[in-house]
């Protein structure tokens, strides 16, 4: 060790093996080398085995005819289509159930979470037991149970329960009439977009005016009127085509109309009740985390319980709620892969059939992982952006 003179800014001379920087790099290189070795070992074994067992590799199979049918599709699909399209159909189904699940579990979870804080002892207790029951049992078990209940307690299509002659409930799902496609629908969609944009603009303007003058403006009612009204006006201008496609029993099943299938229902229901139990806890602890004074101040201002929840407590609780919510949203997306156990054709189910048919496990598992990673990162990015937007602005 060289003796350091006071005030000199040069670093003390040390032997290289005692220099923390050098050590750090050596350590890193060793670790990365070991990881690389392990990876090389696995990859070389895999290549050996693939060659030895004559298993094809590469993604050529994606362009081959799939040859299997899928029961629930959002886009047209037939067995004559390619594997790529079959996997896309599965991916869309995963997205559908995830998005709906996220929206519904947020609503239900928030209600239950607020219910747990209700002054009504009975309601609070029921909400508490709801949370405990659904949280402490595996999701897979709920899915099995709900699927069994849905598929075993509803009658067949010929004995379907009809609700007001428009909805038909049977073990084939819930059939409901839909309008026959008409060129006017595209224009109505456009009007809807315009309505939404206008509603957002009104809300902003009302906010500005209230900040400036203190006068409230019924922005929410105006917004709803715009969103519903504009498409309605377009529809009336287009001559109000009201031809409907009705579900009718023909042969084995209903023809016409549209359907929500039991597998989808059981999966969505299971995901929503299971995850909403966790969401309820997050919401409750978020509200409890706010300073008590806030609630008391809101009450002192004469706001009703609902108003103080909506205007004072929840907006502040959001800041505490968002980060753990993100992980719940991610887990609902990942848990949707349990669809395979009850026969909803999601991404994993479609890829699983593809593994069965092509024998190319590696490529297919990589597809699953890449797809879920993409969705997860997308959700994380969106939630982080939202979190930044509502973060407390320290003045």
């Amino acid at each position: 060790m060289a003796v350091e003179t006071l005030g000199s800014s040069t670093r003390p001379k040390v032997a290289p093996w005692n220099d923390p920087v050098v050590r750090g790099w050596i350590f890193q290189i060793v670790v990365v080398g070991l990881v690389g070795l392990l990876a090389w070992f696995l990859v070389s074994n895999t290549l050996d085995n693939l060659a030895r067992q004559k298993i094809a590799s590469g993604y050529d199979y994606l362009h081959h005819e799939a040859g299997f049918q899928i029961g629930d599709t959002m886009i047209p699909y037939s067995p004559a289509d390619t594997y790529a399209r079959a996997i896309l159909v599965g991916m869309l189904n995963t997205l559908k159930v995830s998005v709906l699940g996220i929206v519904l579990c947020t609503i239900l979870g928030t209600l239950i979470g607020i219910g747990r804080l209700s002054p009504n002892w009975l309601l609070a207790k029921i909400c508490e037991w709801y949370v405990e029951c659904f949280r402490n049992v595996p999701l897979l078990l709920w899915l099995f149970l709900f699927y069994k209940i849905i598929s075993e307690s509803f009658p067949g299509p010929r004995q379907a329960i009809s609700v007001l002659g428009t909805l038909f409930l049977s073990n084939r799902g819930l059939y409901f009439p839909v309008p026959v496609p008409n060129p006017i629908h595209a224009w109505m969609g456009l009007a809807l977009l315009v309505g939404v944009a206008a509603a957002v603009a009104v809300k902003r303007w009302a906010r500005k005016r209230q900040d400036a003058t203190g006068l409230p403006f019924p922005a929410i009612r105006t917004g709803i009127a715009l969103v519903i009204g504009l498409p309605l006006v377009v529809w009336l201008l287009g001559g109000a085509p009201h031809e409907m496609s009705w579900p009718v029993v023909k042969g084995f099943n209903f023809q016409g109309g549209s359907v929500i299938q039991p597998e989808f229902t059981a999966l969505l229901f299971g995901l929503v009740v299971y995850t909403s139990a966790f969401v309820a806890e997050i919401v409750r602890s978020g509200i409890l985390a706010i300073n008590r004074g806030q609630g008391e101040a809101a009450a002192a201002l004469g706001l009703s319980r609902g108003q103080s929840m909506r205007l004072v407590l929840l907006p502040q609780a959001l800041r505490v709620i968002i980060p753990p919510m993100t992980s719940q949203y991610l887990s609902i997306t990942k848990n949707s892969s349990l669809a395979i156990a009850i026969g909803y054709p999601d991404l994993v189910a479609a890829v699983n059939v593809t593994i069965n048919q092509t024998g190319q496990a590696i490529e297919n598992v990589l597809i699953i992982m890449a797809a879920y990673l993409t969705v997860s990162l997308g959700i994380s990015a969106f939630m982080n952006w939202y979190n930044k937007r509502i973060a407390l602005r320290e003045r």
Partner: protein
Amino acid sequence: MTDALPAGERRQLPPPAAEGGAMGWLRKNLFSSWGNAVTTVVLLLLIFWLLSSFLDWAVVNAVWTAPTGQACRGHGACWALIHEKYRFIFFGTFPYQQQWRPLLAVMVMLAMLVSSADRRMWNTRLLWIWGIGSFLTFLLMFGQIHIPLGLILFAALAVGGLGMLLRGTVAQPPEIAGWRTLAAIGAVGIVLRLVGILPPWSLAIAPFDYVETSLWGGLPVTLILATYGLLFAFPYGVLLALGRRSDLPLIKGLCVGFIELIRGVPLISLLIMASVMLPLFLPSGMNIDKFLRALIAVILFAGAYIAEVIRGGLQALPKGQFEAADAMGLNYFQKTTLIILPQALRVVIPPLINTFIGFFKDTSLVLIIGIFDFLNAANQALVDPNWAGFPSEVYLFAAFVYFCFCFSMSRYSKYLEVELNKGTRR
């Protein structure tokens, strides 16, 4: 005031009739306003309706014992099915005559978990409990354990080395000499074993018949997968968390990449990988037991989640602790093991228990790759032609068992959170 009281005394008046007692409680908690009263009545009606129909099915019309499922037809719940199949649901295909062994193994594991819950045991005693308990558990499950000499020597080297690292600067000379001797014996022995001077001997402990993992099933499998999956994942989760917080860019990058990759994909994809692809990763002729494969998948998966929990604990530590340790001249290893981790881990015990609860439930996914965990054994019980057609009973029974486990653990985690924060709460 009517009659004056001596100074310093107050007359205790009873509360108004409508405030105290049972009536008061009812009024305050159930009928405080019109809306509240309506809610209460509606809820009571709903509960009554649900409970009465459920009890009709589950108790009044239930069949408790029957020779086959035929006798249950047209009645309520068929608990006779559980009566017939409970051993299969709990222990799967474990040899029927030997099922006292998994029963004992479950008891040992529960005893380990319960004794770990007692805070007075949080010291080296716990290591002994887990060491002996784990040995007993696997001895009961396998029936025979063969420990090769190489493994014993390796354990000696590892224990000695760890002792030297941890205690090398703080212990008394005789203790250090002891650790050194142990490590030296291990190291020399391994060299001799590799050269071939020492024979390939192994310590055989074989009190019972050997039962391989493919016959294991039911509750012990769920417990083993969750408990040991998390136990083995723990050190590796700690390493990942430390790596993610380190200043070394390559290490940090590796750890962040791994954690985010694992947390971004569903457990199913890892399980499918373990069951279908793992054989391809290994040299031909070498294969890993299916049960072990699932365990590896669970360990890989759990590690990433544990790492995130521990990272939370590391972030909660005041910076002063790190700086003080540096000022004491401790090296990175000593700083981490003696100062940082003990404090960080203490903070994360409740969230770790929650992670354990999550994995206890998530192990049910192994049924998708055909391992007989508790839920899968319950599922298989439904296949028997003589007893087909009563799914709800089996699922409710399984749900009840899962609930008992998870609920008690979550209550414990809540209690612990309060206990551990006693010192910091004012």
